[in-house]
């Protein structure tokens, strides 16, 4: 019923915004659905009757039929042999083992990444909590150096915030002595 109303009451109706358009969108849709066997029985009967009686509908049906036939018969072409050679070169060393996935293939890995996201977030939170504990901050060699050299609180404060572990022993002791002396001043 709706199709009948649409085809009879609202016809002619061209493409949106162009009332002079020769292509009638509703007629085209109805004829295509009928030709492709998608139309319901009443619509198909109506369209067939119009095709019989109306030259415009007949013309539309002929054009669409030819268009669909040509479309379905368009040939498929093969790529050149170079393509397989290049594919072969790229997959040859990969084998069945692990291989790096190109960033452009990343969309295939997204579901896995989303599943792993909560675990990664939890691990990061645990690390932050652990790092926030004062006792895990590096204190370097406070006890050993202060005890052996007697520089006291200044040396302890300096060493607590400077990593001298990579320095040679004379350099390390010299630096401690220099800064401790300066701070004492």
């Amino acid at each position, binding site marked *: 019923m709706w199709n009948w109303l649409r085809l009879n009451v609202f016809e002619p109706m061209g*493409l949106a915004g162009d009332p002079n*358009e*020769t*292509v009638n*969108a509703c007629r*085209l*849709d109805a004829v*295509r659905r009928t030709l492709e066997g998608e139309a319901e029985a009443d619509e198909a009967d109506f369209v067939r009757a119009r095709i019989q009686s109306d030259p415009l509908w007949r*013309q539309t049906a*002929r*054009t*669409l*039929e*030819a*268009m*669909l036939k*040509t*479309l*379905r*018969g*368009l*040939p*498929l*072409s*093969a*790529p*050149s042999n*170079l*393509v*397989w050679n*290049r*594919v*072969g070169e*790229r*997959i*040859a060393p*990969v*084998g*069945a083992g692990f*291989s790096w*996935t*190109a960033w*452009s*293939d990343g*969309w*295939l890995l997204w579901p896995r990444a989303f599943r792993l996201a909560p675990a990664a977030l939890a691990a990061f939170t645990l690390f932050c909590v652990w790092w926030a504990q004062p006792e895990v901050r590096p204190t370097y060699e406070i006890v050993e150096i202060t005890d052996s050299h007697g520089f006291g609180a200044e040396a302890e404060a300096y060493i607590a915030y400077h990593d001298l572990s990579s320095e040679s022993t004379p350099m390390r002791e010299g630096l401690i002595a220099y800064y401790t002396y300066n701070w004492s001043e």
Partner: protein
Amino acid sequence: MNETAKDIVTRNSPEERKLIEACQTGDQTAFEQLYRNYSRDVFSLAYRLTGSSQDAEEITQEVFVSVYRNLGRFQFQSAFSTWLYRIVVRRAADAFRKIKKVWARRVPLETDEPGGPIAYLSDDRETPRDAMQESSREQQIERAIAELGEKHRAIIILRYIHDMSYEEIADILECRLGTVKSRLNRAHRLLHKALMDLGFNEKEE
């Protein structure tokens, strides 16, 4: 009509499954056979989506390398061709965006030249003026398809040239069934109009 990969899958589904399973174990001979079965479909789809044989060959190459690397994750929950075509459409969309960027740099944005980037940047097409003189119906159809927008073109090609169902197209383009149907209607109107402009003749020559 050409035998498409879909026909092969439909007719020889168990063999196709065996072939894919062999590929999943790393069997390169099986993969070469898979390439032979599908390379025409992949190349033709990519060619019609991008309008350039050079881009289509590049996409074909990238698609099969990607398939080889990711085939282990294919679980047979959808048709292999659907999975494969989804990769092709994504790659072609990337290529199309690159072409559009090049096109945007070459001409003012307000250009109203028909055909857009595809008709001019492709390496093996003629100018629209020449296209108007093409008499073959196949050439006219190809020209009219090239003048469609990216989404409408994909639907027409998948539906009629690769013989996909509405459900498969929705799966490939990752959109709803209703969207596919409405886009197809719109694509038909645009294609019909383009063909009329090109002087499409329904009579056999």
